[in-house]
């Protein structure tokens, strides 16, 4: 597949690394907007799309081997250390990396894909409401934790959401409109 190398115009609107939110317009759903974004930008090689409903894993390898196929060893060591330091309740961090990827739940699949794109140093990572069923508290813990990582790697996590509550506490420069993406295809 030939990939476009030039960045889309909306990339200029996100100067600082961190997490961003796109509120879905009322006539659309987060899933639909996410699909639209995928169709418009999947060719760009600096973007990663996280879809936890998607089985994007190799079932006969461990999670660690799945995160980066052919990964350099020290990347996984660093990730292991990171998970160990920030014991995040969602993942049973001590065996998460070593268990086989054959039966992961949606949350675990999300992390596999997220860590994969972070280690691959994709600067733009687009996803949709994956933590909807887990409530806003879990979500805040996660985003606070993630913010540092995103700053360190210079990545932008762009989250398509239909949940007003999620956006409420966020600074205004982190909230994007759907028009930003759909206007410049």
């Amino acid at each position, binding site marked *: *597949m030939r990939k476009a190398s030039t960045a889309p115009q909306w990339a200029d609107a996100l100067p600082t690394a961190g997490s961003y939110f796109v509120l879905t317009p009322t006539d659309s759903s987060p899933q639909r907007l996410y699909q639209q974004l995928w169709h418009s930008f999947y060719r760009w090689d600096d973007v990663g799309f996280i879809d936890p409903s998607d089985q994007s*894993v*190799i079932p006969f390898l461990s999670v660690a081997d799945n995160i980066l196929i052919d990964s350099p060893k020290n990347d996984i060591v660093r990730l292991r250390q990171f998970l160990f330091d920030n014991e995040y309740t969602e993942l049973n961090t001590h065996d998460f990396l070593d268990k086989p990827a054959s039966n992961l739940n949606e949350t675990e699949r999300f992390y596999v894909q997220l860590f994969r794109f972070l280690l691959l140093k994709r600067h733009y990572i687009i996803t949709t409401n994956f933590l909807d069923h887990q409530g806003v508290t879990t979500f805040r813990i996660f985003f606070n934790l993630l913010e540092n990582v995103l700053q360190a790697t210079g990545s932008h996590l762009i989250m398509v959401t239909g949940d007003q509550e999620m956006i409420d506490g966020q600074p205004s420069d982190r909230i994007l409109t759907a028009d930003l993406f759909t206007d410049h295809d």
Partner: protein
Amino acid sequence: MLFINRAIASLKYHRRNSIITVAGLATFMIVVLALQMLRQIESAMASNFMTSIGIFPKLVQVQLKLTIQAMQTTHAAVLGQYGNYATYAYLGIFLFLIIVNSISLHHRQSELKAYSATGKSVSWISLQLFVEYFLLFLIAYVIVFALGMLLAFFGTGWLRQLNQTNFSNQLPDVLNTTKTTSFINSLFHEQFTYFNWKELLAGNTVTLNRIALFTTAVRQSFFSFLSIVILAIIGSSWVGVHVWRFRQTR
């Protein structure tokens, strides 16, 4: 992780696919091996017939001209037939691998997604799949090697009989004219050869070197098998992954 580690893990995980592939490959390959042995037996008999005929005086050879021609044509026809069957068997291996690989790719879309997400190229994915099928091919070949050895050492009699039946089915009736038969009878009545006519026709005078029979067949087929596996798997993977990506983006 190396290609080979992933391949071994994959073969264990997709066990049913591995077993089907090994069984199918082994079946086709033993057929090819048997056909090659038949070819060798047949050509040994053809050349033996001509040398045996050479023992007779020129006059007898002229008398037997029609018979000799019929024998030669039939030998050539049978050899060609074995060659054709071998070609069909090779084609069978090729199509079998393409079908198996396409079906298995259909069941392995999550793996394709993971490979694509980590930025692996289509060539890389094809190579990964080829390593898997190469290991299966080696396993199948070990089985075929053992079966071929058994066939060469214990089944040669059966192969000869098969060849003989096939040969006499194709031999034209020219030998059964009364004139020829009486001439041949008178010829062998005098018993100046160490064989009789029936034995000559049946090729019973040929001694076969079973080790040479086996090693030649193996030597002639290994690289043909390998190149067919390379072509079929790399080709169908490359096309298959492209088609999958195209359908993803529609």
